[in-house]
């Protein structure tokens, strides 16, 4: 698939991963050259990027957004929080990590991961899912 459209959902992240995702679309990294677009509505999306350790309030929203994305879809957990819940694990307010709630296809670890890593993660996840 040559046009993965990306929906980004912040489930309690510290902003670090979010700004790196947006930075991946800026001139130096330019994810759009692979056909990626950052879309605003889950109905348009193919790839769900989840950042953050999934807080209690965002849990129903995460499930809802996941269900709103039309099949076939890819879920990518960006950052250590989303992948393993790391520094926030043990908090009563955190329900994550993401794979406890929805099936995850790829994990991009790092706190935050670099834009290059995010780009590579997305492309590899899409390639392996749609081959």
């Amino acid at each position: 698939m040559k046009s993965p459209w990306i929906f980004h959902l912040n489930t309690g992240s510290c902003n670090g991963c979010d700004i790196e995702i947006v930075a991946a679309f800026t001139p130096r990294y330019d994810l759009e050259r692979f056909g990626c677009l950052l879309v605003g509505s889950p109905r348009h999306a193919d790839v769900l990027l989840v950042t953050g350790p999934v807080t209690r309030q965002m849990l129903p929203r995460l499930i809802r957004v996941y269900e709103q994305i039309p099949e076939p879809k890819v879920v990518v957990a960006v950052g250590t929080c989303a992948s393993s819940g790391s520094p926030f694990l043990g908090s009563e307010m955190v329900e994550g990590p993401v794979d406890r709630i929805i099936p995850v296809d790829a994990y991009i670890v790092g706190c935050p991961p670099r834009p290059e890593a995010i780009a590579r993660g997305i492309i590899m996840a899409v390639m392996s899912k749609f081959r």
Partner: protein
Amino acid sequence: MVVKRSTERTEKEVEYTRLRIPFGPVHPALKEPVLLRISVRGEEIIDVDMTLGHVHRGIESLAEGRNLIQTLYLIERICGICSHSHTTCFIQALEEIGSIIPSERALYLRTLIFEMERIHSHLLLLGVMAYEIGFDTLFMFTWHVREKILDLFEKITGNRIHHAMNTIGGVRWDLTSQMAGEVKAYMREIEKSTKYIHSAFTDGTVEKRICNLGVLDYNDAIKLCVVGPTARGSGVNIDVRKDHPYAAYDELKGDFSVITRKDGDVYARTEVRIFEVFESINIIKAILDRLPNGSIRPEENVFRIMKRIPEGEAVSLVEAPRGELLYFVKTDGKGGLIRLKVRTPTFSNLLSLKRMLVGCEIADIPVIVASIDPCLSCTNRVTIINQEKGKSKVIDMDSLRRMVRRKWMRR
């Protein structure tokens, strides 16, 4: 009778013409979740209600179960944009409790990273502002300039976002003379680019979108206790760097001025940020000129320093990019925390949104919300005091972490 019926009808008409729009928590204009329940009639906003807590991760309660060094890394993850402000504020409180005095060089380096972070944060916001008004090219340009600052961060501290520069009693990385030259050269470039960004913000269609919008006048700003650039855009002259100097700001007082604007609209707040970038560049130049020699931290082993911190409590203030940041820290004398309380600038600023939004149009919501530079991941922390430790017996990752934590405590 007749009168009564007519009033009933108008009320019904009001209800009928009123459309309730949920703005967030998942919305492309917001990179972080917050829910604004907005009632509109046509395009005009008539009421705003706010719901917070979507990013509440229980950081304060988590911190109370960890040791000081672990907490340092935890609070760095309160916010990805102003992480250095958070750690500086926390460490200042610890240093006050333990009466540790960092070396001059360490303080200067702390200030250097602090001001670079301010530039990075302001440029990020200017880009977001451009994005909100649909000016993608300016957004791309601003973020392209911002990448240079991130390069510098990477060169000095090794990280782009979470710098992990601070440690108790000093900083972790030194600045070589070669790096200092590079910083200087980059600053010149950034100054030039920021001037260009300023000229873009005074351009026709941009000006139409952000002038005379979301006005917060001086009295309201005082009444609502706003801080940082939001307050300075309304003519309130407050800046922790001048009022209660910390780190090296006491000696750098003469090298910068506090930028204020009287109008209190979105444009004023944006302009304050643009000019603060120039002031930060001035501060950085002064720091590089006067950087004292010496060691950067008292001891390599932080745990030994950590253990030296006695029982006590302290309040610490810094001027984060978004305004005044306050920490209350109470230590237990065994390298742990009894209580941590963080009051972030966005929490003070968020309430002013209602005043700004009512009467504006739907199209203005993202612009006005962005103009106070909300950092919601900072804001959403409520303390839960009940903490049941070590209840489970199965060794999952939670209990594994607890064991690791105890091991650190014993040292």
